[in-house]
Each structure stands twice: as C-alpha cells, then as structure tokens.
C-alpha cells in the first residue's frame, strides 16, 4: 500500500512536472510568436520597449500608446487590444491578424510591458 502511495505520488509529481513543462513550453511558444509579431508589426511605432517611442513615432500625428503605462492595463485590456488591432486607431491602421496571432501578441505584451 505504501509502495502504491509512493508510486502514485511519484507519478502525480512527474505529471505535474510534465504538465508544467508542457505549459511553459506552450506559453513560451506563444510568447515567442507574440514577440516576433511585435517586432515585425508594432515595434516600428511603439518601440522595442513598448513605450510608444519607435523609430517612426516622431513623424506621427499622435504619439503611439505607451504599453508600460499602468493606465493602459486598466479594464478589459484583452478586448481593448483586440479591437484596436482589428479596427485600427488613427494613425494606426487596422491589422488583419488571426485570433491566435492577436492572442500571442497580448501574451507577449502582458509579460513584457505590464508592470507588476
């Protein structure tokens, strides 16, 4: 019985470790995808650090949003980001991204720019 409990504990522990590893792997993948998308489509205006100071920012009619601002992360941020990406927010154009791409971008932005 003791052996069974030990084996069960080991198996559950391994399962948790594997699940955790898989989850981390999955998150990492989404994070990487989001990072890559951000670099490709957002960085030029929002800047590498998300402060709204990208290379193209000085010439825009409105300063790009600062993602490091605590104000930005108030309310239903996921919906706000999704709507802005889909509909645009002049001078930012609308982006025709897939649901999964927007989700990846949100994961990257949350982990990189949101201050705890």
């Amino acid at each position: 019985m003791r052996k069974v409990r030990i084996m069960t504990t080991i198996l559950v522990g391994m399962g948790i470790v594997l699940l955790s590893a898989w989850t981390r792997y999955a998150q990492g993948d989404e994070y990487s995808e989001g990072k890559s998308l951000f670099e490709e489509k957002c960085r030029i205006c929002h800047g590498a650090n998300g402060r709204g100071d990208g290379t193209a920012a000085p010439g825009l009619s409105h300063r790009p949003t600062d993602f490091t601002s605590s104000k930005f992360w108030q309310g239903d941020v996921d919906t706000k980001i999704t709507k802005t990406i889909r509909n645009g927010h002049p001078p930012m154009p609308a982006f025709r991204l897939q649901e999964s791409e927007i989700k990846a971008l949100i994961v990257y932005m949350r982990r990189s720019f949101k201050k705890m």
Partner: protein
Amino acid sequence: MDRPKGIEIGLLTLFVTGLFLLLTLTDARAVPSFARQTGMSCTACHTVFPELRYFGRIFKLDGYTLSTESRSGPWHPPIAAMIQTSCTELENNRGVLKNGVAPFDDADDSAVDKFNIPQQASIFYAGRIFDHVGAFSQLTYDGPGNDVALDLTDIRHSRDITLAGKDFIYGFTVNNSPTVEDVWNSTPTWGFPYGSSSVAPTPAAGAVLDGGLDQQVGGVGAYFYWDNLIYGAFSFYRTTNDGITRPLGAGTTPDTVTDGTVPYGRLAVQHQWGQHAMELGAYGLNADIHSGSDGSGPTNHFRDYAFDVQYQYTGMRHLFSVQGTWIHEKQDWDAGFPARHAANPSDTLKTFKANVNYYYEAQLGIIGGSLGYFSIAGDRDRLLYAPAPVNGSRTGRPETKGFILEGDFVLKNNYKFSLQYTFYNKFNGADENYDGSGRDASDNNTLYLLGWFMF
C-alpha cells in the same frame, strides 16, 4: 492641319483616361501595393508623391516590409502600375518637336513627338517579399523610346535593433542607381522635378552623380539609421554591361560603361520634431568610365561630391518643403584629352538645384505647386561642348540656368495632374544663339502638361 489633330488626340486620350480612372477606381488605397500592404493611405508615407514624409522614410529604411496582413493569410503579390501621359510645347519649336503622338504614329519619330501617350507605363513589384526582405522594382515601357527596360530597382534586407539604448535600423540594398536608395527628396534620383518632358531639349552637361549612372550600373550596399539622427550608406557599383550585375540593367543598352567598382557614400544628419523635419547631408562617388560607349577604350575619371539639405513641414492641411543640392564634379579626361574628345586634360562641373513646395490638403484633393531653380556651370571646353543645332554650344561653355514653375493637383491620392513651365536664362553657355545655329535659350522654354496615374 497636323497640329489640331495631334492636340485633339492628346486631349481626348487624357480626358478618357482621367474619366475612366474617376469612374472605376473609388478606393485609391486599395490599388498601390504599398498602401494595400500597410492598410494605410498613400499620404501616410507621401506629402505629394513621390515626396516622402518621415513615416515613408522609415518604411523604406525598414525594407518596405511593414505589413498589416496576417502571416497565415493569403499572399497578395505586391503589384502596382503607373501611367504617365504628357504633352510638351516649346517656346520656339522651329521644327524641334513634331505634332505627332508617340508611340502611335511613325515610331522612328516618336522621340520628338509632342504628345506622349504614354510617356511612361510601369509595372511595379513594390512591397514585402518575405520576413525582412522587400523591394521596389519598376519595369517601364518608354513611349518616346518605344522600348521596355528595368527601371529603378531597390531590393532591401533590413533589421531594427536597439543600439546604445536607441533604435538602430540597418540593412543591405541591391539597386541599380546611385541615390535610388536614399530617403530624402534632395538627392538626384528622387529630386525635383519629379516629372519632366522626355522630348524637350536638355542641357549638354550633367554630372555623373546627377543621374548619369541610372540603370548603367548595379551594386550592393549597406546602410544604417540611428536614433532619429544619423543616416549612413555605402555601396559598390559595377557596370550592367556584363557579369553578375547585368540583370539590373535589363533592357537598357549601357552607353556609360564603368571600369571596375564605383564606390558611393552617403552621410546625413536629420531630426524630426513635431511636424518639422530637417536634414543636412553629403554624398559622392568615384568612377572610371570607358571612353567608348560600348565599354571599349581607355577610361576617363570622375570624382563627384555633393551636399544636400531638406526641410519639411507636414501640418494637418498645409504641407511645405524645401530641398536643395550642390554637386561638384572633377573630370579627368585621361582618355578623352589625348583622343581630342576634350579640349582640356581636366574640367570641373558644378550643379546646383533648389526648390520650394507648398500644398494644401482640401476635401477634393491636394492642390499646390513648386518653384525650382537650377544651375549648371563649369570650365569652358570647346570639344566637349561643340557647336551643333539645338543640343550644341557656340561658346564651349556648359552653363545652363533657369527656373521651373509647377502647379499640381492630386486627386484621390493617386492621380496627379501637373502643369509645368521651365524658363531658361542660359542654355549650353549663352542666352542668345547658344548653339551657333541661331537658337536662343528662351526658345527652349518648355510648357509641359503631365497626367500621372498610379494604380
């Protein structure tokens, strides 16, 4: 009888083309490939095309790759098209231009026809190729010349990183014209006037750096842009007459064949603040060019250096800009002097161009215009600038000076109508009887009507 017929055909074609575009193309944003790729209006990158705004300069430096498309979405080839139709009238024609319509009448004479329909027709591959690689490449049908050739081409690979805490764009370019890779409208390839007659007489003298190597060379270069402040570029070119660079001159028969590599360098300091942008820069090249237009014979040596400046104000309604450049060319006639093609062992040529532009963004479209000044001056050389009807020089001097006055109307961002008048104070060294055949500089004053349509 010929004249009314030519005018009627020209005006009718312009009218029908314009009407067709107005009635059929309602969403101009959806047509040119850059606008389609970015989902932005043409005016996001241009004041009045082809003059770039700050965002357009960054888009170009970023390798034409910014896209609002999904990575897994359908691939749209970045194809666009352009048609230019024009009419040219000289102050005193004296048989220089015909009343014909190129290329529809006798093709042998199309290069001197007043009506050019089209003057140029181009297909562009302009946009992202993959990841960080993009291109601007133009295949052009030249109406007066009645031939097809690869036109301006700039293929880029670009990356955006952080260096010393500041944004740093670097990249590589493969292109076929020195200064085509440049992002300011003060350097020759993208400088004023943006459209001009293909058939009006042009000055005998022109610097190699001032368009003399367009499509005659192909090359590879690197560039960088750091912290909204410093831009630098360095390229090496070689002739498109043969070898690996030959495809970059496809369709062009080189008549300016360089020997070895041609180094080209560019450095500029710029700053964008609010609605203002200012740039100060320098650029230059060093070229050995064969005396024979087919690449044969010994070479002459050309060292060009230049300075340029641009100021731009881009308000919500008002757009204002000033551009200027000064080019100094030292010409060593190592081949030309012994062969009696040049009277001096070496000459200098100085080119100065400046223009001021103002546009107003109205509901109907963008309306405005430009005033430009140009001056070419240099050493007297009786063999380089010899007397000949229309294109020659009685005095042996290269001096050409004058003004360009242009009015523009841009409809739906993509359809531009220009009326341009060029005044010559001097042409090929004199104001009166400049060619030794009785032609005055003012006889070459040119009225030019251009319809420029982007699809």
